[in-house]
């Protein structure tokens, strides 16, 4: 799940705060991620995560403290790129039965 984060910044103070304090530590902790800073005019600051399954997740971080931004960044990093759907089962298995599923024909 290697992902690339891109920040589009239009709010100056917030950008400076986050980029100075949080981003370098985030970069060091995650050497497998490619973190890119882009200045995009006319857009609110956001975090973009690109996932291995060609999925994009965008999080708007307008007016957020650096700690909150870091939290969202770590969430993006922790997650896989799968679509956020309500869980049908908590347990995904390929071997549902070990000793054989019971049918009416099974005799002990």
């Amino acid at each position, binding site marked *: 799940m290697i992902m690339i984060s891109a920040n589009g910044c239009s709010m100056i103070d917030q950008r400076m705060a986050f980029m100075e304090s949080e981003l370098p530590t985030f970069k060091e902790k995650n050497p497998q991620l490619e973190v890119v800073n882009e200045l995009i005019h006319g857009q609110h600051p956001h975090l973009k995560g690109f996932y291995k399954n060609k999925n994009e997740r965008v999080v708007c971080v307008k007016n957020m403290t650096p700690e909150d931004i870091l939290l969202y960044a770590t*969430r993006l990093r*922790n997650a896989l790129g799968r679509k*956020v*759907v309500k869980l049908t089962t908590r347990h995904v*298995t*390929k*071997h549902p039965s*070990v000793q*054989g599923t019971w049918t009416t024909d099974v005799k*002990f």
Partner: protein
Amino acid sequence: MAHRRCLLSLARHATAIISQKKMPPLSAVEVLTRKPNPAITIPNSELSWFSFWSHSRHFSSSKSEDSETEVEVEMEEASDVEAENDNAASDLGRDYSPEEKEAEAVAIGYKIGSHQFKVSNGDSIFTERLKFCEVNDKLILNKVLLLGSPTQTIIGRPILPDAAVHAVVEEHALDAKVIIFKKKRRKNYRRTKGHRQELTKLRITDIQGIEKQEIKTDGKPLKAAVKNPEKIAAAV
């Protein structure tokens, strides 16, 4: 009266055990000595084994939750301990592990975060958010209730001491949003709240504590082996 009851229950359990599937009578079932509750009064030594058998069947059939309060306490302790330790190669997550069943791939049921699961090797489990582990961390789950394989079943009382389940943390993610909407009609009361549960996805890699029988499925090697003797027989 009591003697008659004992004999009756003995006979019942004996028939049940004899009719058990794929299990040699005594040797396969390793009944461990730890007794779960003092509430279970066992008059005879023979009865102890048989009465336990009925309890074990109860375990294996239902995935009931055991001793939630204990589990929660242990979870907290584990989390405090884990915060201090380094998250290097493997972490000892002392989460509650329920039934385990082993297959050609190993199958386990374990309890984690006060839920019990029956899993096998290579399964994915969604549990409550585990605070002390990062992504790609290895967890060893100690509390295993039951181990099983195609020929053997090991039942714990209530847990198996030497069994372990290895799991890898795949992701920490948020569940889909659930909107909690409250309304009381004609009373001008309406509330909307959104909730996203934090989940952890674990992938089971290994189960230890039972002999594994790797039954390779009938693929090409078997067919080739079968063909060769046929050819040889035909040639001869």
